[in-house]
């Protein structure tokens, strides 16, 4: 049973990775999107570090790097969701459902594909951020925490997008996949720390689960871990929730035939 699951997962994962890495039109938007955001935020808004109360040792580049790292993780999952929707639209997924001995392995396979794709993006974004003057204050263990939290976000939003793709089975569901992700990301403290937000956006940011992740990643990069346990809790909770969502969508796709 486990072997069946593993075989299906690796086969789907390999196919997803192969498709993305052999098709520049699929690979480059996923790389360009976070880099453009990083350039626009870290370059255009760097004066925000002079706002009274803003004190972040890795600098404004580091501050924005953490957000862009998590944003690219989330959208890495969503972009892979587009591919799943395309597989359904072109009928490939139907053949996949027929041939897979353990169908939940299909979801795991897409998650593997999304993860490998994201690792490349994370490497590029990290390189660019270091080149742009980001100072890393955390130690090796802190950095492992930074990327582990990012991976949790990637898996969680892949599962979200996978659920949407399997339910709607059309690329036209793209806005349903990405709009909520976009909103939840931007209702977190994107430009300044949580303490400097005022009014309704502060209340939303406090209630937003992604705030815990962003704040934890920023604290780890700065070498002063804070709220890390809560961030892991949020990450695993999101994965559990969206895994149920994706599995239910898979059952619904099976039922449709």
């Amino acid at each position, binding site marked *: 049973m486990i072997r069946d699951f593993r075989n299906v997962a690796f086969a789907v994962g390999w196919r997803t990775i192969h498709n993305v890495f052999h098709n520049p039109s699929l690979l480059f938007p996923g790389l360009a999107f976070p880099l*453009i955001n990083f350039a626009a935020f870290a370059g*255009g*808004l760097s004066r*925000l570090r002079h706002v009274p109360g803003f004190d972040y040792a890795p600098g404004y580049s580091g501050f924005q790097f953490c957000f862009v790292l998590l944003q690219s993780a989330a959208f890495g999952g969503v972009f892979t969701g587009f591919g799943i929707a395309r597989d359904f639209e072109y009928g490939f997924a139907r053949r996949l459902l027929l041939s897979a001995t353990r169908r939940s392995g299909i979801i795991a396979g897409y998650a593997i594909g999304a993860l490998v794709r994201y690792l490349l993006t994370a490497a590029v974004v990290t390189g660019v951020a270091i080149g742009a003057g980001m100072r890393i204050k955390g130690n090796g263990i802190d950095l492992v925490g930074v990327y582990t939290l990012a991976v949790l976000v990637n898996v969680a939003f892949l599962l979200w997008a996978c659920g949407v793709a399997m339910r709607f089975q059309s690329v036209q569901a793209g806005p349903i996949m990405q709009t909520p992700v976009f*909103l939840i990301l931007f209702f977190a403290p994107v430009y*300044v720390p949580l303490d400097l937000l*005022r009014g309704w956006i502060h209340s939303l940011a406090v209630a937003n689960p992604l705030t815990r992740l962003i704040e934890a990643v920023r604290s780890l990069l700065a070498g002063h871990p804070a709220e890390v346990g809560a961030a892991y809790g949020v990450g695993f909770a999101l994965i559990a929730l969206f895994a149920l969502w994706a599995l239910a969508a898979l059952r619904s796709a099976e039922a449709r035939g």
Partner: protein
Amino acid sequence: MRSGLSQVYHVARRSVVRQARQPANVVAPVIFPLGLLAVNSGGLQAATLISGFPTNRFVAFALAIPFLQGALFATMNAGTDLARDIQTGFLNRLSLTPMRGAALIVGQLAGVAAVALVQAVFYVGTAYAVDVHPESGPAGVLVLLALAVAIAIGFGAVGVFMALRTGSGEAVQGLFPVLFVFLLVSSMNFPRNLIEADWFRWLANVNPVSYLIEGVRSLIIEGWNGEALGLAFAISAGLLALALLASALALRQRMTRT
């Protein structure tokens, strides 16, 4: 002359009706920019604490952005509609008629202008709703609407050119991120003189979109700034002229009459 005007009228009417029949084309350019405005003005309010920032309310500063984002959507809508005409063979059938190419382009842009005006009225209404009163007064609001339409027509012409050049709605849609980069690398979130990174300030200085934003912004937070307005109108006109010229050349190939 009269026949030409009649042709423009019929294409324009079709373009406007078509936009009105696609609620997504009208609603998305209104909702998306206002959503971003809400997020950015909340998140970046702290920027007004920086010495030299031109206003103490970031929402007033950022209100210019929806006008540009709305224009970007206008580009996509105009281009996608025309590309669909090409893909479905409508343009080929049209080339069998005495329809002039210029009438087709101008008529198409009339639809863009109509949607842009509706959007701009909505954005101005939003400004008053959040208690931002344009410093230039009621006359300034009229100029603001005119500038918004001029910018949208300029961008719309780019969309028309892309549609004629590629004949593909997908290719026109693919243009959106490219144009969005121009918006991101501009004085959208910060005045150019306060941008700290030299390379980014240089990019914002050479980016014409900065001057379009500043033209709109000047009417909201400054009052009457002849230089900012002149530059914004001139750049819109230049963009329109270039895109029309390119469109005319592309149309000549696309509507080859045999």
